[in-house]
């Protein structure tokens, strides 16, 4: 079965199910990062009001809260559709992981509902009803609630990439949670959370800069735009640098638990020590990949062929070849089938224990038992390679962008930038700020492409490939809902952009 499913979408249900899930997740992720990013900016604006009691800051906070509200309303429940898709298109997967996946998602739902519904209401309705301190706390807690929601979703996602804290129960055919803390505080989840949330702040900052640039270009709301740009530039620069640091940490996690993903990101077929990081094909920064993966310029990084054929890890242990993993996976599957049959027939406990022992010792390679050709475990290399470069390249661009804005707005160094006034720049400067919004989204979605394409063909790393996880549903019915979603999502996105643009054109409402 082909795993190069990005371009070759045919009539089979698995390809449509994957395409539909990707469409829904990408659409959902248009709203989430802006929510997380704007929450920080509006929180800072309101903190300025709380400290100065200058009504300008209250009006500014209310303006960004209004845009936050539009985005928040449009994003509500778009993630729920993913859960519907689990139950219909990915039922084998849902059952196989249900006990573990259900807990973080349930907590996310409860926390999101109670925290966000309470504090969002106070934030919008409570300006004249509650004390300034309580209102400020509610504004920050609205953002914190959204961030905590993101935490649980990312815990669930991280578990699929690095399944920990679980044990497979052959009687129920489910992975059952044995350690909630191992799942909730998985190092992979922590790295993923930090990188994802911090990168979301970049989108918030870029959005605020873009809206402010539009006002400056139109010579209106000058003070709001200037002060907002100052805040967004600081948030954006801190977030861009933070995304680079947390990205480095994420890369190290990936190198340890998903070496194939890292090899695909680099299109590295033959690995070794002292590996360079490719900027573009054929141009490498010496030793940089080894450092990125291992924190050691001489560190060993396995390539795709090394992983396929087996290699010696830096700690001296041997990583089995994919062929060996396939054999062990087949043993687990056969033992599981034999165990279930024997149990039905009332076999003696000694025989059942023998099967259980075989299942347990090979379960970590269970999914490999379904792999017919070892090359099927290689993810689409070109997608990973370029998506990673787009993400990192744009990330570097944002560091430069925010550093320049910060320098211009604060006129530092003074001798060089004294003559620049951010309110009277030529229009093309403002257009650059506006056009960076789509680039910020492209960077963010590229990050998810790396994360999700890089783990193909696994829905659960090494345990369940996509073609086993998918339900036995008609490809036509999944294709039908794919196009239904495409229509609905496009319509809703047009509505959101329309409302957002109207509110931006309308501008802030000044209370004085």
């Amino acid at each position: 079965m082909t795993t190069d499913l990005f371009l070759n979408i045919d009539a089979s249900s698995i390809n449509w199910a994957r395409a539909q899930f990707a469409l829904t997740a990408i659409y959902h992720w248009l709203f989430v990062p802006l929510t997380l990013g704007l929450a920080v900016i509006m929180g800072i604006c309101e903190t300025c009001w709380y400290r100065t009691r200058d009504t300008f800051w209250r009006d500014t906070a209310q303006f960004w809260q209004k845009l936050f509200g539009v985005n928040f309303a449009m994003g509500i429940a778009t993630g729920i559709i993913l859960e519907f898709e689990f139950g219909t298109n990915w039922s084998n997967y849902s059952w196989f992981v249900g006990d573990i996946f259900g807990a973080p998602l349930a907590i996310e739902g409860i926390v999101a509902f109670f925290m966000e519904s309470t504090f969002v209401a106070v934030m919008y309705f409570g300006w004249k009803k509650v004390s300034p301190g309580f209102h400020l706390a509610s504004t920050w807690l609205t953002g914190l609630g959204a961030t905590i929601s993101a935490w649980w979703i990312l815990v669930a996602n991280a578990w699929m990439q690095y399944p920990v804290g679980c044990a497979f129960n052959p009687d129920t055919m489910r992975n059952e949670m044995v350690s909630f803390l191992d799942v909730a505080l998985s190092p992979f989840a922590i790295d993923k959370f930090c990188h994802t949330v911090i990168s979301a702040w970049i989108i918030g900052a870029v959005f605020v800069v873009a809206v402010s640039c539009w006002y400056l270009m139109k010579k209106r709301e000058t003070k709001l735009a200037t002060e907002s740009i100052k805040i967004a530039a600081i948030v954006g620069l801190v977030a861009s640098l933070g995304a680079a640091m947390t990205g480095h940490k994420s890369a190290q996690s990936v190198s340890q638990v998903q070496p194939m993903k890292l090899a695909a990101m680099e299109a590295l077929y033959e690995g070794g020590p002292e590996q360079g990081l490719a900027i573009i094909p054929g141009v490498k920064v010496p030793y940089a990949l080894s450092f990125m993966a291992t924190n050691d310029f001489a560190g060993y990084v396995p390539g795709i062929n090394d992983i396929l054929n087996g290699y010696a890890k830096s700690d001296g242990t041997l990583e089995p070849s994919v062929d060996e993993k396939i054999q062990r996976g087949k043993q687990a599957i056969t033992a599981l089938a034999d165990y279930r049959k024997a149990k039905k027939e009332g076999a003696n406990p000694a025989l059942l224990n023998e099967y259980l022992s075989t299942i347990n010792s090979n379960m970590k390679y269970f999914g490999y038992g379904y792999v017919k050709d070892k090359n099927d475990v290689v993810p689409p290399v070109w997608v990973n390679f370029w998506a990673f470069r787009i993400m990192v390249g744009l990330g570097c661009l944002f560091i430069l962008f925010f550093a320049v804005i910060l320098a211009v707005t604060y006129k530092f160094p003074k001798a060089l930038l004294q003559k620049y006034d951010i309110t009277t720049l030529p229009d093309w400067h403002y257009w650059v700020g506006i056009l960076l919004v789509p680039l910020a989204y492209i960077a963010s979605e590229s990050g998810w492409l790396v994360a999700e394409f890089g783990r193909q063909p696994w829905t659960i790393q090494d345990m369940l490939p996509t073609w086993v996880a998918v339900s036995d549903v008609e490809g036509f019915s999944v294709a039908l809902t794919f196009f239904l979603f495409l229509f609905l999502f496009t319509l809703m996105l047009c509505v959101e952009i329309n409302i957002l643009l109207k509110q931006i054109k309308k501008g802030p409402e000044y209370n004085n």
Partner: protein
Amino acid sequence: MNRKNVLYRIYDLYVDGFRSMTLGRTLWAIILIKLFIIFVILKLFFFPNFIKEHAAEGEESEFVATQILNQQ
């Protein structure tokens, strides 16, 4: 009800807030339409629970075992 009562103040926060909404009315209308489409149309007609539809109650694990183990 005593206007200093906490429950009254919470009630007043929401009622007064909803009454004085402007943009919020549009957003709520969109949210409700969206929730109707998601939970009533999509969930009921397009996204049934596959296992519940195909397996008897209590036999879900057997159904999934058949689905998974037969694919080798």
